[in-house]
């Protein structure tokens, strides 16, 4: 008998069908990858197994876990299953932990509840499992609070909670999506080891085919609440029998067509010289000396007209800070930033106006980058504020319409609100906002990392296309090397505030010289490599 058997599962919330005819089996000690794009129902499937569905949800079909009929089990029985025989790891380590309880309490809580152990025993077990997930007590005593840990360490605590009682089944819902590639590789490694040691079944939910290929023995591909294809990972993904599997695989390795860059011109568009940014942090004591954290440490580089350059690095390496200084949203502590021959540092807003017209920004979060209360026309037209003389309202509408057409949307979308659009469409809108003044530089801060792979492919195409048509230069900030490789010619590798390596994108990624670059390259999931590794091992 399998550990988990899902047969013919149907789920509806209110009148909206969410899942249709889901079949899935998972053996003891097996890793099953559940892949799909947003809204495909993969998280709902996991929540059904935990029976943590929203109130209005109704499920039918058969879900058998370890001989127990989950859908019919009383709530008490489910409570003793959850956290004991089934553990769960969530995506967002920031919100999965209670900020007012110490990590020791949070790990011990489940142990005490399920085993009835006394406080001392539970704490001893908590200590052991925290040690196992890489948080030894010497450096990370049980009395630490979640805010004292980094994102990766928090995710380790979440894993410790889930695995404390050696569950038979571990469900991990996008466990590494909020982490950078190096941390992702570490967390995946930890999960793999834990699963092997304790012979757990692992249901790994992810939108990233490469991650799943690396981890899973078998894979189930979902779309619109239905299973598209299921089977052994390596075979399914190398044969790609189902058209949707093929589409998904193609999208995740998609490289937009681009002309090779013309040789760099003599005069650079952007010249960054010895830029330093210090943030002051709380003094050690009231009369102690002021303390600083150096986020960016003596960075210099230049960007030619029409060039597309990537800035890669782990989270917290200072790449976003650097971007904000280039956009003159933040003042550097030292150094100079020359944009098109004009110094940007130390200028007032009025003096910056002509430069601002020529550089725009695209952010990561397609949901957060628009004021929800304004219509598209007003949102996209925002940078027109920089144009002198101010365009008339007819001209404004015309320019907004043109910008919308530029990014592949319809001028009729002008009168809608941002919430009427999907994530990919919103990202198009924020690109429309960026190109409306016909800037010469666009700084894009992780512009595709919040998007599904197929949408990501389309947005990358759009970036490439705008680069060709409008000759706009890009500074692409990303931790995703696939994206950097797809869209840029040159790359800067940043580590702890410094640029540690720089060169042609392919050159750097194929033959990384610095440790930081090598760590990034080694940790980056790569679908093709993962498949061939799987096939070789089989």
């Amino acid at each position, binding site marked *: 008998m399998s550990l988990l058997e899902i047969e013919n599962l149907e789920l509806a919330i209110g009148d909206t069908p969410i899942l249709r005819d889901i079949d899935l089996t998972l053996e003891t000690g097996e890793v099953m990858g559940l892949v799909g794009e947003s809204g495909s129902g993969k*998280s709902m499937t996991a929540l059904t197994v935990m029976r943590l569905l929203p109130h209005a949800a109704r499920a039918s079909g058969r879900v058998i876990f370890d001989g127990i009929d989950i859908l019919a089990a009383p709530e008490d029985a489910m409570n003793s299953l959850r956290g004991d025989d089934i553990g769960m790891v969530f995506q967002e380590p920031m919100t999965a932990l209670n900020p007012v309880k110490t990590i020791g309490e949070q790990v011990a809580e489940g142990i005490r509840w399920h085993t009835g152990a006394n406080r001392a025993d539970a704490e001893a077990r908590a200590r052991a499992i925290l040690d196992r997930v890489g948080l030894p007590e010497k450096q990370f005593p049980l009395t630490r609070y979640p805010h004292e840990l980094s994102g990766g360490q928090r995710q380790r605590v979440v894993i410790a909670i889930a695995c404390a009682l050696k569950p038979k089944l571990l469900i991990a819902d996008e466990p590494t999506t909020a982490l950078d590639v190096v941390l992702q590789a570490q967390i995946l490694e930890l999960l793999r080891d834990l699963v092997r040691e304790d012979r757990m079944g692992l249901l790994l939910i992810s939108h990233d085919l490469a991650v799943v290929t690396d981890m899973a023995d078998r894979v189930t591909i979902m779309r619109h609440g239905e299973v598209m294809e299921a089977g052994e990972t390596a075979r399914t993904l190398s044969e790609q029998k189902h058209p949707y599997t093929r589409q998904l695989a193609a999208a995740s390795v998609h490289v937009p067509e681009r002309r090779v860059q013309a040789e760099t011109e003599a005069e650079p568009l952007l010249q960054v010289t010895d830029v330093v940014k210090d943030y002051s942090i709380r003094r050690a004591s009231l009369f102690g000396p002021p303390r600083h954290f150096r986020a960016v440490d003596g960075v210099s580089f230049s960007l030619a007209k029409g060039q597309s350059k990537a800035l890669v690095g782990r989270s917290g390496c200072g790449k976003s800070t650097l971007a904000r200084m280039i956009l003159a949203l933040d003042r550097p502590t030292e150094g100079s930033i020359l944009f098109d021959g004009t110094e940007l540092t130390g200028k007032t807003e009025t003096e910056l106006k002509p430069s601002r*017209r020529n550089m725009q920004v695209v952010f990561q979060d397609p949901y*957060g*980058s628009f*004021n929800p209360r304004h219509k598209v026309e007003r949102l996209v037209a925002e940078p027109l504020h920089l144009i002198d003389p101010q365009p008339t309202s007819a001209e404004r509408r015309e320019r907004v319409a043109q910008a919308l057409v530029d990014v592949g949307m319809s001028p009729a979308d002008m009168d809608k609100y941002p*919430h009427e659009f999907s994530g990919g469409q919103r990202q198009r809108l924020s690109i429309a906002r960026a190109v409306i003044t016909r800037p010469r530089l666009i700084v894009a801060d992780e512009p595709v990392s919040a998007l599904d792979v197929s949408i990501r492919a389309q947005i990358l195409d759009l970036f490439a296309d705008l680069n060709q048509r409008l000759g706009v230069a890009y500074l692409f900030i990303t931790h995703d090397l696939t994206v950097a490789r797809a869209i840029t010619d040159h790359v800067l590798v940043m580590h702890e505030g410094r640029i540690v390596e720089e060169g042609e994108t392919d050159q750097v990624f194929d033959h990384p010289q610095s440790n930081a670059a090598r760590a990034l390259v080694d940790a980056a999931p790569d679908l093709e490599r993962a498949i061939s590794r799987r096939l070789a091992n089989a």
Partner: protein
Amino acid sequence: MSVETAPSEKEQEHWLRLALNNRSFLTGLVITALIAAMALISFVWTPYDVTDLVVANRMKTMSSEHLFGTDHFGRDIFSMIMVGARNSIAVAIVAVGVGMGIGVPLGCWAAARGGFIDETLMRFNDLIFAFPALLSAVMITAIFGPGAINAIIAIGIFNVPVFARVARAGALALWPREYVLAARAAGKGKALITLEHILPNIASMLLVQGTIQFALGILAEAGLSYLGLGAQPPMPSWGRMLFDAQTRMMVAPHLAIFPGLAIVITVLGLNLLGDGLRDVLDPRLRRER
């Protein structure tokens, strides 16, 4: 899987219906509307003239002639409560207006500028906060003399730091948002961004705080009038009516009961309205319910 965080079309369209389904909002709205209507009607009509002293009718209990009875001068208590509502509401509205008018710009300014200006403004705020509001209001009216205008100023001043704090906290949470960064990248100044992006997004917070301060304003006005520092006779006010009633409480309890009830019901109504508004306007609370 990314979760849709923005309000869906449905949610935005039906906030009004949501509001009408919210029991505390509805109750609060009805009570507040009734009190407001009473105050407005008193301008054109009251059952009796409140300046009519008919000593022969003094301290009558409730009857069909005098709904809430009469006071020690023979004035009709129902009429006095109607006119007193006018006074209470006017004082509270202007006091909240003063608090918002000064506090919100200050808070927004502090959030937009940050650093030294923020620190100075907020510490000054703390200074005002540190004084017990009612005591200081007593002090102000003691210096400048009693009267409705001075009561308004005194209550208004202590509303300023409340609104400044709420506005600053709301604005601080919005400044690092990406749409604000995008607006800055579009070259918009801090004042313009505050006007276009910050204020509309903190308006609901301020509205909720406004209803709560309004209720507190009514209480404070009643307190000041009780001490004889608010509206001066012959203008009736709820606080003054309570003061006049207290020595006669054993003989004619209705003298104290009705103005007291008026204050309690008004404050309750406004608090319910504020709670309801918060539930309706704050999408985060709404989702948690």
